[in-house]
């Protein structure tokens, strides 16, 4: 089945080539991979290109840089709050954007030690937001929880409903004790 795919590819390329004799001579390996069964594993060479692409992206992400045009991307990230600037830098030629970024980095009082890639950055920011949100929510919920008990509590009455307290005397439903 995969053999058929590679065979079809080879035949189509052969048909599309102008000088077929030359195509066969310059693509001997392709022919061998299709014709000789023992060379079938050479089909995996196609995966090498994919691996190199993945490698480039993974390496860039691990080094904490954006993959291809790093200057422009970093710069845009630095100026996310200023849309005009982003557009301006996007129109700059690459070298100009890079120089601009270097100037920016030189002017930056805080050295940026780790600059996570876009995905990691978003994830970290999101996590931070969630944590902050939870903290606020907890604080708010805590105050909400306290207020009704304060208001409902008679002056001098016990705050908790332990056994033998107000709850155990049957004035409150069982769930209130939880």
């Amino acid at each position, binding site marked *: *089945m*995969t*053999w058929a*795919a590679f065979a079809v590819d080879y035949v189509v390329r052969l048909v*599309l080539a*102008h*000088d077929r004799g030359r195509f066969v001579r310059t693509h001997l390996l392709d022919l061998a991979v299709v014709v000789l069964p023992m060379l079938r594993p050479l089909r995996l060479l*196609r*995966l090498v290109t*994919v691996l190199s692409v993945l490698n480039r992206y993974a390496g860039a992400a691990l080094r904490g840089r954006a993959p291809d045009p790093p200057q422009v991307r970093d710069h845009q990230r630095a100026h996310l709050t200023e849309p005009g600037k982003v557009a301006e830098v996007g129109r700059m030629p690459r070298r100009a954007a890079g120089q601009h970024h270097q100037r920016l980095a030189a002017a930056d009082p805080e050295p940026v030690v780790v600059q996570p890639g876009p995905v990691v950055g978003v994830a970290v920011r999101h996590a931070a937001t969630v944590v902050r949100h939870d903290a606020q929510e907890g604080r708010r919920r805590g105050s909400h929880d306290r207020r009704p008990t304060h208001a409902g509590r008679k002056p001098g009455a016990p705050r908790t409903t332990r056994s033998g307290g107000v709850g155990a005397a049957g004035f409150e439903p069982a769930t209130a004790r939880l």
Partner: protein
Amino acid sequence: MGGRDPRRVSPTRLQRWERTAEWPLTAASLLFLAACAWPILDPDLARPWRTAFDVVA
């Protein structure tokens, strides 16, 4: 590609085909890798599965 003879290959059609076929062929090679490796990694594979993987590869 030095441009000595521009008629050597038809750049548009051949290159368009190569670009179109790139990802399907990559998928095919992945499929090939799986079909080759599975019977080796799992020697107790049932006969029909073995044949199926042979057909795929």
